[in-house]
């Protein structure tokens, strides 16, 4: 998916103060790009990620994703758009504990007009892609952190969205599991053409991206940084 952002601002009131986590931010990301967002806490990374994912709305500016004017969609339209075009990967996986891996991956498909066999085929393919076919009937409590994140990734891709957003996807994982998850995300970008926007504090994680964007006080500080220059 092609992301075009022009003069994007997000502000909200907190008590008597007006907070502006993003101010006049502009950027473009071509289809299939793996973009890393870095910056100190409170710099606006997660706010930008939430706006791109369509779970929050900007105060002003333009946010086009492919031909969808996301900034101007209603709440109901945004929900429908997310269900078709976005996969969200959380730092703490956020799987539903009473559901098996299979059932967790099935959740986005419940919103689509698919038969049971069609759903099964898609879930099997997604779990196969993340290497967890043999854990389909396991509940989250029976999986390791790395495996839980793989299930979360399978849930994010099962409906074949063009855009994946990931909020610190390796933040809660050990080094080995983190490397494995990053390899999986790289593969999704390179081999499957997914546009990925990932928030991370970890320079090693950011290094796998095609481009790294640094945010400070709601604005980009090096819009053209490559991974090598940004990490160094």
């Amino acid at each position, binding site marked *: 998916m092609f992301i075009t952002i022009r003069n994007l601002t997000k502000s909200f009131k907190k008590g008597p103060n007006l907070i502006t986590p993003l101010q006049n931010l502009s950027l473009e990301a071509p289809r299939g790009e793996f973009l890393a967002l870095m910056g100190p806490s409170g710099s606006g990374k997660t706010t930008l990620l939430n706006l791109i994912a369509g*779970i929050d709305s900007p105060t002003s500016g333009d946010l086009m994703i492919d031909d969808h004017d996301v900034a101007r969609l209603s709440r109901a339209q945004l929900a429908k758009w997310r269900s078709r075009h976005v996969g969200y990967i959380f730092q703490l996986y956020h799987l*539903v504990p009473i559901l098996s891996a299979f059932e967790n991956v099935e959740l986005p498909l419940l919103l689509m007009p698919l038969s049971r066999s069609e759903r099964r085929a898609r879930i099997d393919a997604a779990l196969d892609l993340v290497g967890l076919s043999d854990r389909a009937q396991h509940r989250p409590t029976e999986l390791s952190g790395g495996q839980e994140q793989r299930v979360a990734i399978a849930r994010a891709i099962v409906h074949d969205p063009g855009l994946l957003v990931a909020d610190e996807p390796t933040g809660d994982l050990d080094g080995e599991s983190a490397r494995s998850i990053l390899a999986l995300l790289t593969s999704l970008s390179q081999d499957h053409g997914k546009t990925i926007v990932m928030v991370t504090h970890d320079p090693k994680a950011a290094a796998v991206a095609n481009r790294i964007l640094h945010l400070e006080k709601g604005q980009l500080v090096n819009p053209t940084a490559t991974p090598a220059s940004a990490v160094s």
Partner: protein
Amino acid sequence: MKLLILALKNITRHRLRSLLTMAGVAAGMFLFTAVETMQHSLAKVTQASADDTTLIVYRENRFCPATSRLPEHYLPTIRRIKGVREVIPIQIAVNNCGASLDVITFRGVPAEDLRKYNPDLVVIAGSYENWIKRSDAALVGETFAQRRGLKTGDKFEAVGINVHVAGILKSKESQDNNVAYVHLPFLQQASNIGLGTVTQFNVKVTSSDLLDPIAKAIDETFRSDSQPTVTRPEKAFFAETAKQMIELIGFTRWLGLGAVAAVLGLVANAVLLIVRGRVKETAILQTLGFSRRQIASLVSFEGILLGLLGGAIGVISAYLFFHWQSFTLGNEGLTLAITPSPTVLLKGLLVALLLGLLASLYPAWRASRQHVVQSLSQ
């Protein structure tokens, strides 16, 4: 359907909490169904319908069977009135004239007339012929026999009268199932009323349209007699005679409403707890693309399932309880059998479903209105 399955899985998440909620709902709906069963049973015996063709002729200004005494020789006079199809004189003896849960009622009738008057009676044990042959024999109603543990061949004593059980009978009329039919002369003598005197006449008319004109005609006929009569349709007679009982049952309607309110509060509280305990998870579902309507539906389904599952346990338990227990309320010799009804069963299930839905409306609204980003950061 897919959301319904998800809702079902969700309520198994906190099994103990869900079970306790359903147990509370079951208790409330048991009480509601018990009250509704009483109301329904009462309505059945007091609300007039087009099928009613029975009149009760009683002694004017008398209510308890012990004080209503009419000459048996009124019989041919009543029978001659145009529109009268059948008449039977009945002597009644009861152990208690007031409202009671255990009324024993003997009905003395001419042995040769019982079947003619009431062809719906079916003898399910023993035989009608044995009853005819033996002067102290009793045909005991099915519910009466079940309550007292009586079977054919037994002897029992009540109201100072000793009888031999010649058979057990079953009837479409609940009154018949709750009395013991004995021979009229036997009861007249055994209860010291004396031959020639009866408590009442039951009169069947050819059409329900004729109930009022024939009642007037009967009372007019005996107005100047030494024993004037008051004649009413059977259901009106029940409604007037058993006023105390009806008032008591009428009061129970408030208990039913209380039970409904308790169930409503219980389910609403349970669903609200579910919503509060799942703020982040709801936000995750919203992030995946679940719309407000789908979130609200999911929460509502959980409330409906809690209400319906708990309600079904309570309603079906109450149905079976009244089916097996054969409860009766008696007043002045009239018996109200508290009988379970499929209509009440369905009504109970429908009420449980609606309560579940109603109780989950506010929690569903709250869940669907929560802000995704704020909820995710909790």
